[in-house]
């Protein structure tokens, strides 16, 4: 039997050099619920965007119902019966549900939209597929779960046979999730096929017939769900990565540099993002923070560096409380920060390299003396750092925009390392940079540790954390669920179980302070 959808040897290389998919083979049978799992950045979203015509593959073929097809845009995908429900809903808030469902291909009566017909169509679809909606309610007045059902009905109205659901449960309550699963089963009973993107293993077991696991842009396995356990899938997700060879002398822990106690952060939406977080970072050690992305790591770093205010709890750096202080005060107490989102926080693309290198110190001697700024000293400083950190660019006056990703990251590393911090917070420091720059950053982090600085390394790349960190804190749903000593006996599988919420350390037994 030929597969319903077959993607063969799909490779996607983005213009900035990031390889999102490497020779991916992916196939889905007619009438199945197929889970596609992997960490953020594993390439699953890119693969689905290719299938839905949002991205063009660099290489590879797509076969649908035994025929080779080209999908240059979503319009074509819809014609072929492929529908996608995005994580962020694309609905018009001021329109009613019925209006949203028929939007773009409205039933007409003469020159006008036939509202009665739109409502009738919506009711019929709703009944057929068991997706409860109120056709006359405005989107802005409906709960998230219903909006999602509207998105699904929208794709069905356009005649989709294959539905791609991109992390559909991320925004749902457990009850809504249960309802969604019932609806999905009903859809399949009616002959539809569903691709379900997630990184929650419990859901994979509960809903899917088969599961394809991706990691680092490649497929690491495709199995029937009933034959495997959650731990098996976790292993495939996290994988046995090739360890990066890093020479690291044994840890020589000094004083406690950073002390985080009962830290909490509630987002503006009222959702608690960080809960009761406590840990220490010692001088001379690297504390790694592992976790599937979106479990609070970003917020933890931003709260610690002053970009977001902590809701509760304390942070001390060398004994000075710094919670809810400005980024400048926190920097003055000795914290440097390599930010996760380089282009948003880490650089100003329209400024020069020299200017980017002094954003934290332009107001101090030797750059400013008696209130006067010296562009010449700023340029000199840049020349020195560019030599020291091997930043390849036309010169200190070259715009940041002209640099490659790796060199941009070197500019950030050069600035933050030369700030002589006591605590260095590095978030995803090697994301999207080439192997050479990755190695460079790793060696620099270890060098700082050996100098006796405290390093907090947050990374979604478990191999990176395991090869660099002395201790590893694992985050899950805004909490630290374990703090583990890194050593030969610690396995990726064990960390993976904590990362995916399958296991958690008792708070009492947790080593907030290192032994």
């Amino acid at each position: 039997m030929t597969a319903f959808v077959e993607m063969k040897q799909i490779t996607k290389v983005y213009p900035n050099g990031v390889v999102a998919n490497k020779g991916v083979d992916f196939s889905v049978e007619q009438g199945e619920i197929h889970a596609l799992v992997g960490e953020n950045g594993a390439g699953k979203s890119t693969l689905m965007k290719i299938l839905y015509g949002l991205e063009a593959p660099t290489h590879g073929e797509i076969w649908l119902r035994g025929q080779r097809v080209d999908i240059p845009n979503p319009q074509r995908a819809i014609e072929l019966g492929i529908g996608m429900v995005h994580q962020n809903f694309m609905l018009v808030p001021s329109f009613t549900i019925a209006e949203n469902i028929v939007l773009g291909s409205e039933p007409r009566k003469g020159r006008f939209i036939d509202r009665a017909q739109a409502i009738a169509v919506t009711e019929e679809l709703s009944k057929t597929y068991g997706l409860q909606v109120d056709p006359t309610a405005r989107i802005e007045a409906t709960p998230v779960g219903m909006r999602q059902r509207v998105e699904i009905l929208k794709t069905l109205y356009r005649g989709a046979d294959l539905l791609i659901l991109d992390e559909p449960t991320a925004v749902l309550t457990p009850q809504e999730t249960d309802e969604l699963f019932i609806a999905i089963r009903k859809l399949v009973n009616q002959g539809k096929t569903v691709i379900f993107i997630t990184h929650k293993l419990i859901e994979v077991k509960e809903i899917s017939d088969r599961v394809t696991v991706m990691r680092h842009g490649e497929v690491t396995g495709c199995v029937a769900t009933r034959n495997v356990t959650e731990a098996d899938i976790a292993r495939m997700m996290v994988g046995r990565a090739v360890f990066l060879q890093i020479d690291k002398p044994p840890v020589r822990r000094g004083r406690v540099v950073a002390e985080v106690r009962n830290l909490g952060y509630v987002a503006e939406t009222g959702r608690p993002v960080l809960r009761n977080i406590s840990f220490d970072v010692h001088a001379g050690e690297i504390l790694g923070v592992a976790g599937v992305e979106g479990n609070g790591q970003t917020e933890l770093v931003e709260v610690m560096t002053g970009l977001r205010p902590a809701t509760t709890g304390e942070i001390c750096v060398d004994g000075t409380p710094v919670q809810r202080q400005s980024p400048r005060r926190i920097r003055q107490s000795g914290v440097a920060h390599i930010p996760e989102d380089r282009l948003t926080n880490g650089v100003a693309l329209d400024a020069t390299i020299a200017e980017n290198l002094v954003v934290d110190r332009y107001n101090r001697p030797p750059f400013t003396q008696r209130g006067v700024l010296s562009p010449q000293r700023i340029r000199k400083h840049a020349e020195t750092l560019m030599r020291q950190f091997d930043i390849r660019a036309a010169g200190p006056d070259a715009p940041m925009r002209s640099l490659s990703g790796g060199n941009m990251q070197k500019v950030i590393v050069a600035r933050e390392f030369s700030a002589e911090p006591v605590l260095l917070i590095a978030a995803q420091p090697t994301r999207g940079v080439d192997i050479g720059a990755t190695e460079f950053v790793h060696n620099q982090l270890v060098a700082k540790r050996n100098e006796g600085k405290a390093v907090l390394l947050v990374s979604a790349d478990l191999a990176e954390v395991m090869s660099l960190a002395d201790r590893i804190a694992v985050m899950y749903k805004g909490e630290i669920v374990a703090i583990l000593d890194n050593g030969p006996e610690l396995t990726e599988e064990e960390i993976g179980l904590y990362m995916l919420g399958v296991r958690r350390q008792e708070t009492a037994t947790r080593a907030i302070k290192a032994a």
Partner: protein
Amino acid sequence: MRGMARFIEPVRIIAVVLIALAIGFVITALVSKEPVQAYTALLTGPLPRISFENGFEIKNINRFGNWLEESTTLILLGLAVSIVFRARQFSLGAEGQMLLGALMTAIIALKLSLPFPAHMLLALATAMMIGFLWGLVPGLLKAYLSVDEIVSTLMLNVIALQLFDLLLFNWLRDPAAGFVGTAPFPTSAVLPLLIPGTRVSLMTVLMLIAVVVVWFLMARTPFGFELKMLGANRKFAEYGGINTKRVIALSMAASGILAGLAGAHLSMGLLKRLTINLSPGLGFEGIVVALLARNDPRWVLLAGLFYGYLRTGAQIMERSSDVTREVVLIIQAIIILLITAERLFPFVQEWVQALRGRREMAVEGG
């Protein structure tokens, strides 16, 4: 290599100016019976003529004066706008700040009697102060309450205009005058004349000082660096420790100082009194100057002189030919549009890029 980049931009602007002037001529030719004469008036009108008919004599010095007077106001307004634009804040408050600056000088000039130069200096200082405050208000609103500065500055312009009219009608107006306006300012509160036969005053010198001060502020002070980083990427500036709220508020306030000074120029230098409809819309001309100059104070000086020349020439063209004011304004607008619309000239862009590419290759090779 840096010299090259500096060279390309002026060449581009000059090329665009020439093209724009050519288009302007075509339009003139379409509407005028004597287009060459009319266009000559536009292009050479503001220049003084040296005549030897009755021995050495400089004629039309008043036209030359008009050019400098006009440019002085425009450059002050251009500087004001360039400060906020540099920080990528779109404050449109110069008009209101200018009006209030002029209003304050009238109050000081007419309601206080002091000797020169104390009287003049006090009037200038209050004009700058009111500009500062009228800029600080939308600055604080934007920084701390995220009030859109376009809306708030436009609203504050309306308030300023009504305040101006109210005080002028009910308090400052000279009932003996045949129009709505104040009595002439006492000489102790008038800016000293620089060139006889014109209205070019001390303000032209103050304007030159202001250019230097604003350049220094932008290029040689930590505040200038903060402005630039805020404009380049606000999140980056915050991450680096810059108090962006303070910078936003102060940039708008600093801008107001210069707009207030422009207002003082109108009242204390040009009119020597306050009249109704002081100069509607002039406050927005600073935006044109700042755009032409790419927010660089040094270029504001040149752009202001250029735009002032164009405006003065246009007035002369209107007076001395059959081309109507509306056509003159159209030509003026086309020239400005062409210069500010960067992407209208892809071939110039490509040419610039080709030069840049060659430059970069040279760098890598060497």
